[in-house]
């Protein structure tokens, strides 16, 4: 299709590079430099969407991120992007775009019946109905949900990649319009490290959109000069296509950069998040034009005046053949003049103001344009495209005249883009002359300049921007002695005041929020019903809650509320701007922390051996651990049983490298551990190890592990696998914030040591030939620690046991872990050494009645509850001691750790099953405890379980009942939790 609405000349598009694209299946042509919106408009396409609630036909309305209507789907298959703004999509060859939220077609959309029912669907109607009968809401909701939503999600995972980058700078300038460029130049000339981020494809901001001159030359020349100068500065980094999304504390600004489209389609990354830490931020984010309230103000062909002139100036597109400009301010005359200069017929300028004395109306009249003071649009005609407007004097609205036109360019003045300012905690004040919020006091590290500061005249943007750049550089520590820019822009005294925001009401639909279909009537209803706070009115009507977040409409809404409530706008207040300024993809926020890099799996140094030997893995904390090593055809249970038997009868080998390890050193180390653990470590002799229990301040068991004393002031502390990080942070927290009297140094060494545990009666025979350490019981008893060499590797050996059998935990530097493992396997071969995994480990320890933190504890269990009361020192203070003295920490209501034997030995009680005193109980049933661990024990040849039961130690021998989920209630007997070798003969021998 030919580009009928492309102007013969002008614009910043590259007419040498035609691009072909598809919209709703039709092929169109555009040029490089077009947006999807400008290319559609060049082809005469205005109707691109249906509205959210009433499915009214909607056209392209704006120019950029403020766009409330033109949400389309781009891409196909996995590369679908729903709700893309046609106004921000760069045109590329082969681009595929489709309209959304319509059926069967954009032109004929059955959803539009909602428009007929609109009197019923007033603000908040859903709060007043759909209440019955019974559970009918489910049905209503089903229908509402299908009607709602806008775009559709892709059905496949995203093929694209997203990056995260981090940067520091002295001065971050947001926006490369006149103010931002001037600020960046001033700060850059002062020597500051400057970052200039701008959401557009090229710098210039409004200077690209409007035919301004600076120093007598086209403003775009100045932009080119300024950009060239910035690009010559070593300390200046300029990012286009980069949108500042949010400002966080201490000068932290999140920005997202779009990739430059490439002809082949796929870029190396699609979007890149910049995390910028700036000493100073200059917000030169410009202003967003707002429309006016009038009947029929959503007709396709209606557009923000500034957008209409930008499409002409920047993209060489005539948005219509015959335009009407409807405004309340002088700036809109620039639109009329630019449109006229482009060869578009301007049928008239309707100005709500009666008294037009400014230079701009005079200029327009001088150029022969028809200016109607005190006039308004009181209606529009056409359905999917504007055909005419009804114009009438403000004071006599029934005295209508029909003006045929296919473009209605509206301007209600400008709203400074104060989003970033608000994120930083800035409090805006209302300027009634501008009918806009402008910055009040500046938040720390931030200056607002140019239109964003409510200084709309070009001369003010340039001088204000330069001033802001100098000030920011100075505050960042640079002496900015450069003279401010001396520039001559036209009309330094331009009148930026605005007239009324509203045309006379003739009973038509008057939209405030185009996306969410919120009308003036809705807002008045909200006020009438008592939703007087602007936040209530917003939430009741959904004004400003759509994808555009009310960028164009909110001020209009505030003025309606102000009128309805008889309060001044500042009293009505404004809603809070929240990040992001413009919607950002999940992908960009997530960056590379997806797929394999989402919480990367931690692997032990012996992991490759496990993998090669058929290990079945399970995630434990951040690690993957071998759960068992099933032989071909062997089930997990059979494998675990075989592994347990080996560890009991001959020897097993276990990879314990994941245990948390903390190196504790310093003159205060022993005292520190005494405070941390409920038992005493200062009495531990070097060369010995002790099992310790750490309690929280609430007296509950927090973590456990064996800690060895390597020297007088040096300990090797171990934690559970899952608790390694949290325990380390907990210890540092106490040291750094509470116990400044202790000189102790903590180092996390979890990954520095590989640990292999030999366990079983033949453990000594396996280790003996490999080491120079005397392994005899006399020389190396249970709970001792020795240093020596194992397989010629320097090693720390702990004689501890988590299986209840003779056991050595051999620690070697991590890089030797695999070699140690292989040496032990080799040495153990004659003894039938068997590697065992976590499943066997759990069975072994449960047979012995050893606890696992997280199974037998859940943050509500004390040492006494576990039967470990003897460990609790009465001679010293420690974390949790005071809490242990509270009334609720003792007595018959406490749960005790006990063993539980199902009456049926073949039954393994499910972990988590709850325990009752009687076989049947009414609901809610009094539960006295639960099964914390439960396994089929190969050693005991029956199911065994550990349980936490109220007053359990006093109930030994009692029968209790476990109602299973969707199963029978089974009986079990309470017994001691130690099933295997209660005398410890095997462990200590």
């Amino acid at each position, binding site marked *: 299709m030919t580009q009928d609405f492309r102007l013969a000349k002008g614009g910043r598009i590259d007419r040498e590079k035609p691009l072909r694209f598809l919209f709703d299946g039709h092929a169109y042509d555009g040029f490089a430099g077009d947006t999807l919106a400008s290319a559609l408009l060049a082809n005469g396409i205005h109707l691109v969407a249906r509205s959210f609630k009433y499915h009214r036909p909607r056209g392209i309305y704006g120019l950029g991120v403020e766009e409330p209507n033109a949400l389309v789907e781009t891409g196909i298959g996995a590369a679908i992007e729903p709700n893309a703004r046609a106004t921000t999509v760069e045109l590329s060859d082969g681009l595929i775009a489709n309209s959304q939220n319509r059926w069967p077609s954009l032109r004929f959309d059955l959803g539009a019946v909602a428009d007929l029912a609109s009197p019923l669907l007033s603000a908040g109607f859903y709060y007043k109905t759909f209440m019955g009968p019974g559970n009918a809401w*489910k049905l209503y909701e089903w229908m509402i949900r299908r009607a709602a939503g806008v775009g559709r999600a892709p059905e496949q995972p995203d093929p694209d990649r997203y990056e995260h980058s981090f940067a520091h700078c002295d001065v971050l300038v947001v926006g490369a319009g006149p103010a931002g460029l001037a600020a960046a130049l001033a700060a850059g000339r002062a020597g500051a490290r400057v970052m200039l981020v701008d959401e557009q494809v090229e710098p210039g901001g409004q200077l690209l959109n409007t035919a301004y001159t600076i120093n007598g030359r086209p403003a775009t020349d100045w932009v080119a000069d300024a950009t060239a100068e910035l690009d010559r500065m070593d300390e200046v980094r300029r990012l286009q296509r980069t949108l500042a999304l949010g400002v966080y504390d201490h000068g932290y600004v999140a920005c997202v950069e779009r990739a430059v489209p490439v002809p082949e389609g796929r870029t190396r990354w699609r979007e890149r998040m910049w995390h910028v830490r700036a000493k100073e931020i200059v917000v030169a984010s410009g202003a967003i034009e707002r429309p006016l309230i009038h009947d029929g103000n959503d007709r396709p062909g209606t557009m923000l005046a500034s957008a209409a002139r930008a499409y002409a100036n920047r993209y060489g597109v005539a948005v219509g053949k015959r335009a009407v400009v409807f405004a309340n301010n002088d700036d809109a005359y620039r639109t009329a003049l630019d449109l006229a200069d482009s060869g578009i017929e301007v049928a008239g300028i309707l100005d709500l103001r009666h008294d037009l004395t400014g230079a701009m109306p005079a200029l327009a009249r001088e150029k022969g344009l028809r200016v109607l003071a005190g006039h308004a649009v009181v209606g529009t005609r056409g359905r999917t495209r504007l055909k005419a407007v009804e114009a009438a004097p403000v004071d006599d609205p029934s005295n209508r005249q029909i003006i045929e036109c296919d473009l209605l360019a509206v301007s209600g003045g400008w709203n400074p883009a104060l989003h970033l300012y608000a994120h930083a905690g800035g409090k805006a004040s209302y300027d009634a002359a501008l009918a806009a919020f402008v910055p009040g006091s500046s938040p720390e590290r931030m200056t607002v300049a140019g239109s964003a500061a409510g200084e709309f005249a070009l001369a003010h943007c340039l001088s204000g921007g330069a001033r802001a750049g100098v000030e920011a550089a100075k505050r960042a520590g640079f002496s900015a002695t450069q003279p401010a820019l001396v520039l001559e822009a036209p009309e330094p005294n331009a009148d930026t005041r605005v007239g009324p925001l509203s045309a006379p009401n003739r009973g038509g639909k008057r939209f405030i929020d185009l996306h969410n279909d919120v009308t003036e009537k809705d807002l008045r209803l909200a006020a009438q019903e008592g939703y007087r706070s602007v936040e209530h009115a917003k939430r009741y009507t959904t004004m400003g809650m759509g994808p555009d977040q009310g960028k164009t409409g909110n001020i209009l809404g505030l003025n309606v509320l102000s009128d309805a409530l008889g309060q001044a706008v500042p009293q009505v207040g404004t809603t809070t701007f929240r990040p992001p300024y413009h919607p950002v993809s999940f992908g960009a926020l997530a960056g590379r922390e997806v797929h394999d890099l989402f919480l990367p799996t931690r692997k032990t140094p012996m992991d490759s051996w496990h993998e090669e030997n058929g290990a079945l893995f399970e*995630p434990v904390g951040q690690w993957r651990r071998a759960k068992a090593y099933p032989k071909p055809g062997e089930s997990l249970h059979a494998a675990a049983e075989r592994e347990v038997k080996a560890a009991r009868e001959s020897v097993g080998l276990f990879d314990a490298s994941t245990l948390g390890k903390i190196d504790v050193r310093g003159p205060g180390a022993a005292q520190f551990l005494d405070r941390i653990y409920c038992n005493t470590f200062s009495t531990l002799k070097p060369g010995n190890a002790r099992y310790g229990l750490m309690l929280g301040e609430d007296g509950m068991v927090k973590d456990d592990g064996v800690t060895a004393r390597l020297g007088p002031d040096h300990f090797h502390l171990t934690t559970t696998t899952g608790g390694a990080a949290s325990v380390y942070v907990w210890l540092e927290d106490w040291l750094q914030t509470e116990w400044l009297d202790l000189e102790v140094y903590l180092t996390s060494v979890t990954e520095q040591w590989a640990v292999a545990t030999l366990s079983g009666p033949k453990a000594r025979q396996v280790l003996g030939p490999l080491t120079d350490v005397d392994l005899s019981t006399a020389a190396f008893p249970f709970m001792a620690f020795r240093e020596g060499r194992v397989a010629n590797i320097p090693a720390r050996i702990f004689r501890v046991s988590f299986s209840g059998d003779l056991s050595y935990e051999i620690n070697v530097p991590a890089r030797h872990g695999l070699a140690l493992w292989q040496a032990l396997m080799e040495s153990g071969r004659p003894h039938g050494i068997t590697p065992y995994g976590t499943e066997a480990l759990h069975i072994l320890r449960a047979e012995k009645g050893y606890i696992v933190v997280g199974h037998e504890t859940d943050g509500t269990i004390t040492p006494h509850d576990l039967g470990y009361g003897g460990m609790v020192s009465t001679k010293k203070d420690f974390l949790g001691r005071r809490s242990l003295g509270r009334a609720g920490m003792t007595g018959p209501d406490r749960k005790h750790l006990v063993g539980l034997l199902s009456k049926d030995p073949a039954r393994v009680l499910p972990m988590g099953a709850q325990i009752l005193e009687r076989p049947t109980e009414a609901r809610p049933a009094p539960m006295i405890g639960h099964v914390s661990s439960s396994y089929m024990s190969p050693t005991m040849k029956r199911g065994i379980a550990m349980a936490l039961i109220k007053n359990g130690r006093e109930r030994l021998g009692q029968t209790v009942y476990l109602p299973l989920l969707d199963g029978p209630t089974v009986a079990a007997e309470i017994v001691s939790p130690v099933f295997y070798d209660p005398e410890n003969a095997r462990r200590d021998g």
Partner: protein
Amino acid sequence: MKRYSFVQLLRNAIGLGDGWQQAWRSPEPKPSYDVVIVGGGGHGLATAYYLAKNHGVRNVAVLEKGWIGGGNTGRNTTVVRSNYLWDESAAIYEHSLKLWEGLTQELNFNVMFSQRNLVMLAHTEHEMIEASRRVHANRLNGIDAEIWSREQTLAFIPILNKSMNIRYPVMGGSAQPRAGIARHDAVAWGFARGADALGVDIIQNCEVIGVRREGSRIVGLDTTRGAIDAKKVAFVAAGHSSVLASLAGFRLPIESHPLQAMVSEPIKPVLDTVVMSGAVHAYVSQSDKGELVMGAGIDAFNSYAQRGSLPILEDLASAMVELFPIVSRLKILRSWGGIVDVCPDASPIIGRTPVDGLFINCGWGTGGFKATPGSGWVLADTIANDRPHALAAPFSMERFASGRLIDEHGAAAVAH
């Protein structure tokens, strides 16, 4: 109170109605009330409603510093469930859930309580065991709860990441079919309208700046709109509980943290239930408008400013992409923060305070929304009868002295 109905809506639509009344009045504060509730969030408004409705105490004011429902009521992710582990928690949340089930009709205001099921994913064997423990306990407490296999879970939530070759594959989960979400603003407005109709004064833009006592007894409050006498006062001001307590001269075992949430742009339905994941760390549902509504953990620092830090949101986004790979190209529309008051045992405080005549309801941490009607119900009863309601009794402040904590940390898969 003029009742809402479809007929009313129709009459107004065709011009036969006589217009809509205001949902609640905006009266000037009276010099004195029998009960003053400080805090016009869901809990405070519910307390006032049930005081008037269940106990006939109608000379009641609700004082709100800003606009009603503007604190955590209007900032949460609207999850309603009762599948808590401990008996005390299960009892009060289930009581609340039962009230939710009739709340729309009770208030004649559609709070859009959507019982769309809630699935807590389990990604490890340990999480499956925890789920089993909770579900066993829930069943015995009379709460609907189910253990789901991996296949069941994936079939119910088709957009879940089905790969086994990921960090935390879905192993299964637990479900509560009666759980779901509700329209948060509507809860505040519905209770406000209901309370107002029963005579309660709802006074917005009224901040408490002082507590007036005679001896050990509270007699009134100083506010930005003047002094107000009160026979009894209840502080129901999540996010600022400690501040109010200090005005009254006592301390609370509470830390205040920012908790953030975010929503995506509206899309057509892709998620018909509520999903929570502890290991991957996110919870999400899709609103009736089509937005994905998400949250994760608290910001670690203490703050009263209702905003959090960026890394929390980035982690949430990666968790979402990990759980639901199709969301990557969707866009996040808005993020926000609220302030949650967290007790050491992650359970609330409901009941009397060291000051006679002063009651408190606070410390709901990240999970207060679901308790709104139940919390109001038991606090109203506690205030009216000057003794803890049976369901509130375990949640007294004294538990921190006695050690009879109700620790939901280990029990809740994710802090919500």
